[in-house]
């Protein structure tokens, strides 16, 4: 599953950085009917979590009203150099993970 993560490589201590995620996913609502007239089963990302130094700093709960290829933007106060981890889970329980290193100096 492909993901685009827009995050700066480095930040000044105390600087508030903006993080943007674009995850490739159909976000099938479960309300649509397919060509055979039957409902297409729901397939959505239910949660997107951001961990900073292992601590949860942001979480988004998504519902079928979020577009295909969900986009989430949020902010983070940088204070220590470390790993920023992104974890997203779909309604079947499949979890994907991606990480970036933020240098604070």
């Amino acid at each position, binding site marked *: 599953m492909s993901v685009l993560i827009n995050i700066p490589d480095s930040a000044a201590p105390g600087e*508030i950085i903006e993080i943007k995620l674009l995850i490739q996913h159909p976000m099938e*609502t479960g*309300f*649509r*009917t397919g060509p055979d007239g039957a409902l297409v089963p729901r397939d959505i990302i239910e949660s997107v979590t951001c961990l*900073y130094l292992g*601590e*949860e*700093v*942001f*979480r*988004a*709960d*998504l*519902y*079928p*009203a*979020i*577009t*295909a290829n*969900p*986009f*989430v*933007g*949020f*902010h*983070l*106060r940088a204070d220590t150099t470390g790993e920023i981890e992104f974890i997203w889970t779909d309604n079947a329980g499949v979890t994907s993970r991606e990480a970036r290193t933020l240098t604070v100096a």
Partner: protein
Amino acid sequence: MTLSRRTALTALLSLPLVLQTRAALATPESMQAALDDFTGGAPVTPGRVTLKIPLLVENGNSVPLSVSVDSPMTAEDHVEQIAIFNEINPLPDTARFHLGPRSGLAAVETRIRLNGSQTVHAVARMTDGSFWSATTDVIVTAPACREV
């Protein structure tokens, strides 16, 4: 068999009943229920929340939305959650964002689907347990969820 006027009229009158069997949509009432579920019945005060969403949307399948809340975002006083609700999509819940003092700035953005013209609500919960909200009326010319 010929098609009598009676048969034709009966068929015509029963058409709305057939159409109504489609999936039930959210209503302003069910949205209020989802909102009460989020607030636990606590009063919601308009203000402190800024909801940015286009007033006229051509494509309901992708509507950019951003919410910011006036808050210092310190450990003692910050936004805990921001919830987005809609009135006429199949589900009133749209998205929930969990923030903390590490967020630095209470501003989030995403893209949503809207199944027709309606009022979109953004509600924020603060650390002191108070709820603040903003609403915007959106006109959608091509709704989501209608294509088969």
